[in-house]
C-alpha cells in the first residue's frame, strides 16, 4: 500500500501556539491584557488604599514623581482625597467587566444572526441583512445615551445596551464566512450522515468560525471599553462613586489646567487597554490565518 505513510504534521493547536509565541504584537498586547486582567481580579488585594475612602485633608496630593510626592500615594489623590492608583486599579475591573460582557452578549446575538443568514440565504438572509442595515443606521453613542438616560446608568443596563448595539460586526463577518462554508462538501456530508440543521450550525460550522469570531470579539471588547468610557465621561454611564476610567476623566476635567495628571492617567489607562486588546485581536487574526489550516 502506498498511502499508509500518512503525512503527519503538527496539530492545528500546536501550529497556533507556535505562531503565537513568535508574534511580537500579540505578545505585547497579550502582556498588557494579562497585567490588566490580573490587576482587575486581585484589585482588593493589590490596591494600596480603599478606592472609596475620602480624605479631604489630603486632597490633590501630587504623584510620587513630583517634588512633594510620597510613596504612600503613588499617583497622588483626587479632588476628594481618594488614592488615585487604587481607583485606577479598581477602574480596570469595571472596564474589563463591561468590555467582556458586552462583547459576549453582542457576540451571541451577532453569531446567531450571521450563522442563520449565511446558512439559509434567500429570504432569511434578506431579513437579517435588513436588520444589520437598520442597526448600522443607528448612531451608537446617541442611542446608548438615550437609553441610559431613560433607564439609569446602572452597570448592567450599560452592558445590555452595548450588547444590543455592538453585534453588527459579528453578524457581518460570520454571515460572509458562513456563506463560504455552507457550500463545502462536509456540510452536505454531515447532512448525509443524518445531522439536523441546528447540529450542523453549532457542531459543524461554528467550530470552523472560531477564528474570525475570536478576532471580532477582541476588537469589540476594545470598542465596548471606549464606549463605556465615553458614556461615563458624559455622566450617563457608570455612576459615581464607582471608579470608572471615563468617570475619572470627567471628574478631572475641571482641573485640567492645574493638575493634568487627573486626566492623563485614566486616559492613558483607557488608551493602553484598548491598544492591548486590539493588538491581541490583530495577533489572533494572524494566528488563525487560513493558510495555517492546510
Amino acid at each position: 500500500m502506498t498511502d499508509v505513510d500518512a503525512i503527519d504534521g503538527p496539530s492545528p493547536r500546536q501550529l497556533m501556539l507556535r505562531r503565537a509565541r513568535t508574534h511580537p504584537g500579540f505578545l505585547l498586547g497579550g502582556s498588557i491584557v494579562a497585567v490588566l486582567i490580573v490587576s482587575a481580579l486581585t484589585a482588593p488585594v493589590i490596591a494600596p488604599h480603599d478606592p472609596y475612602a475620602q480624605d479631604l485633608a489630603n486632597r490633590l496630593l501630587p504623584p510620587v514623581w513630583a517634588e512633594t510626592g510620597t510613596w504612600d500615594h503613588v499617583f497622588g489623590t483626587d479632588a476628594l482625597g481618594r488614592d488615585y492608583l487604587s481607583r485606577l486599579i479598581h477602574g480596570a475591573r469595571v472596564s474589563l467587566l463591561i468590555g467582556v460582557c458586552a462583547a459576549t452578549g453582542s457576540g451571541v446575538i451577532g453569531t446567531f444572526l450571521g450563522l442563520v443568514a449565511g446558512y439559509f440565504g434567500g429570504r432569511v438572509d434578506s431579513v437579517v441583512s435588513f436588520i444589520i442595515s437598520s442597526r448600522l443606521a443607528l448612531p451608537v453613542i446617541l442611542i446608548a445615551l438615550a437609553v441610559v438616560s431613560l433607564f439609569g446608568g446602572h452597570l448592567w443596563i450599560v452592558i445590555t445596551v452595548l450588547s444590543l448595539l455592538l453585534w453588527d460586526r459579528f453578524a457581518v463577518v460570520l454571515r460572509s464566512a458562513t456563506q463560504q462554508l455552507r457550500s463545502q462538501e462536509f456540510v452536505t456530508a454531515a447532512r448525509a450522515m443524518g445531522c439536523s440543521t441546528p447540529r450542523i450550525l453549532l457542531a459543524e460550522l461554528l467550530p470552523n468560525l472560531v477564528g474570525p469570531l475570536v478576532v471580532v470579539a477582541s476588537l469589540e471588547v476594545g470598542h465596548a471599553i471606549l464606549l463605556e468610557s465615553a458614556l461615563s465621561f458624559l455622566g450617563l454611564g457608570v455612576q459615581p462613586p464607582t471608579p470608572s476610567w471615563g468617570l475619572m476623566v470627567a471628574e478631572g476635567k475641571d482641573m485640567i489646567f492645574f493638575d493634568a495628571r487627573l486626566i492623563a492617567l485614566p486616559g492613558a489607562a483607557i488608551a493602553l487597554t484598548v491598544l492591548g486588546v486590539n493588538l491581541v485581536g490583530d495577533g489572533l487574526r494572524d494566528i488563525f490565518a487560513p493558510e495555517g489550516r492546510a
Partner: protein
Amino acid sequence: MIDGSPVLSVRNLHVTIPTPTAPFVAVEGVDLEVKAGETLGIVGESGSGKSVSALAVMRLLPPPIMVEADDLRLGDLDLSGLTEHRMADVRGARIGMIFQEPMTALNPVLTVGRQLTETFLRHRGGRRSAARDRAVHLLERVGIPQAADRLRAYPHQLSGGLRQRVMIAMALMCGPDLIIADEPTTALDVTVQAQILDLLAGLQTEHGMAMIFVSHDIGVVARIAHTVQVMHAGRTVEAGSVHDLLARPSHPYTRALLSAIPRPGMRWGRDPLGAVTWTDDGAEAPS
C-alpha cells in the same frame, strides 16, 4: 439476500431545477434498482444527472429543486413519504454516503475520531467508549494503521487515500443497507484508486450491503459494478449487466464512452457522436 428483493428501488425519478427562464429538468424518468450484495454503477459525463440522482435518493437536494418519483423506497420504507426529521434518521443509519473529495468532505477542524463517533452516537446512542471501539475497529478494517492514534488526527494530517478510507469507515459506522458512493475514487491517484475499489468490493461481500457507485469513468465502474446504467442528459440511455454492456454496447453514447479509454494502437479520430477521441487505428468510426 436470498429473496432478491431490491434494497433500493426508484421508479420514474424526475428532478427539476427552477431557473428564471424555464425549469431545467436535470433527471428525467430514471429508474434505479439495486439488490443486497450488488453494486449498481451509474456512468455518465459531467452534468448527465448521475450525482443529482444519487442526492435525490438521499433527499439532499435543497428546496427550490423539485424531486418527484412514482416510487422511492428503501427496503419496505417509502422514502418520499418521510418527514425531514424521519429522513434524517435514515441518512447515515440505513444509507451511507461517500463523497468525491475526501479533502473537503471531512470537517477540517474536528478530529477524525469525533466525526466518526458523532454519527454513531446520533443514530445508535449508547456510550462514547462503545462508539470509539467501533470506530477503531472500522478504521482498522479499512486499512488505516495505528487506528487508535488516528482518532486524534485532524483530516489535514492524513493523505488523500487515508482520508477516503476514513470517509468509508464513517459511511459504515451504523451498518447501512445501502452505500451511495459519489465518484469516490476520482480525486485519488491510480494506485490508491485500485486499493479503494478493492476495499469497497471486499467490504460489500463482508457486509452484504447494496451499493450505488457513481463515476464518469466506465473503466472503474466495470471493475466494481454488477449492473451498469449509462446516463446522458438526465436520462438512462442504456442499462444492463456489466458484462453485456461492455461486450455489446448498443447505444452510440455507451460506445463513445468505451472508446474514450485509450488503448495501444489507437489514434485520434472521431467518436460515434462526432467528438474528437481515440479510435482504433485504421478502423472506421461506427456510425
